[in-house]
């Protein structure tokens, strides 16, 4: 019997940081509620490391006997995430994580990722495209 979960999918599209900013490439982030931050703990189901937006799907355990809830978070592009310290293997399927995100205004289980924390290592990654606005990043 699998533990139940809620599926958490975090569909992240643009960047948040307090502004209703468009996402990395081709769409605005205004569909996400920048005034709210949801926090969900779960297991990464899938990572789509693709342009123009990366996506991370997280399964949140639901109640006993219930299927996990899947949350979809969208993020900026792989290139922008690289300048924020990410690589395609930073977050992998199976990782236990906590995601913090601006949720979709329509109430669906999705949002724009603000921060993800790996449960085992405590390592965090952000999705703040303004954080790369300096030359000669290391």
């Amino acid at each position, binding site marked *: 019997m699998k533990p139940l979960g809620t*599926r958490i*999918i975090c*569909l992240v*599209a*643009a960047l948040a940081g307090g*502004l*209703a*900013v*468009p*996402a*990395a*490439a*081709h*769409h*605005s*982030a*205004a*569909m*996400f*509620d920048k005034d709210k931050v949801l926090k969900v703990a779960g297991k990464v189901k*899938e990572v*789509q490391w*693709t*342009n*123009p*937006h990366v*996506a991370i*799907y997280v399964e949140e355990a639901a109640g006993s006997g219930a299927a996990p809830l*899947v*949350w*979809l978070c*969208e993020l*900026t*592009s*792989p*290139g*922008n995430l*690289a*300048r924020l310290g990410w690589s395609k293997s930073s977050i992998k399927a199976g990782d236990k994580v906590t995601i913090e995100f601006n949720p*979709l*205004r329509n109430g*669906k*289980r*999705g949002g724009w990722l603000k921060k993800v924390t790996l449960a085992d290592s405590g390592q965090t990654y952000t999705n703040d*495209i*303004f954080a*790369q*606005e*300096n*030359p*000669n*990043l*290391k």
Partner: protein
Amino acid sequence: MDRFRSLLATLLLLAALPSNPEDLGPKAKSAVRPPPTAKDWADLAKLPDWSGVWNPKISDQFAQMKTNPPPWTPKALAQIARMDAEERAGRPPPIFVNCLPEGMPSWMLVTHNAMEILFTPGRVTMLGESDGNRLRRIYTDGRSHPDSPDPTYHGHSIGHWEGQTLVIDTVGVVPQAYLAVSEAVGLPNNGDLHVVERIHLEGPDVLHDDLEITAPRLLTRPWKTTRIFFRQRARKFDIVEGVCLEGSFRQAVDADGNSVYAPIRYDVGGNRLPPE
């Protein structure tokens, strides 16, 4: 006889040249591109160093929406106001979600992604990340614009160097290309777009693109704005391949065991749809 004809042809060609050919140079008048010489390659070393990867100052793009808005015509302003209201209401107008190129001048104005700039004899080439079609060819070999260029997303660009500044003149942009101030707010230029840019280093690792945008179907007067880019030299930040449509699919394995791209569901705004 053949030598006489050849001489005559040469004389006729010389007679057809402008009285001040030094303005354009004989190469600029040629219908063919002559092969670059060793000097042409060596002369590239005199240009400023724009190597590396350049990522945009996105926060300044947003700031200028308030501090330096385009001088929209009343008709355009009414449409922009509606788009602003929709954006604030959480229903961003989907203007760049079809994966067609953002085109000129929006690529320079609202991109969130990095670019690189290549110098070759007679050419400057700008290559953008995260959209397989972000490419600008800027001819610096002295040629003029064609009389009637085929319209394209990035237009026809000719450039010349004024000291350490590259001056670019762009016409021939498709009327459907947006003049956008964000990924959700902008309007098609509707024709007769003309962009003049002055690109130069503002600091050792900061590049400025000073744009003057003339769009008579949208703006009451030319609009001046500067876009800022930061240089990255770490190899791990090299430009990566970015195919816009890739985000409309997920990697999957089909019934025969082949690796394939499977379409995913996404909304009108371009966001992947969360599972129900």
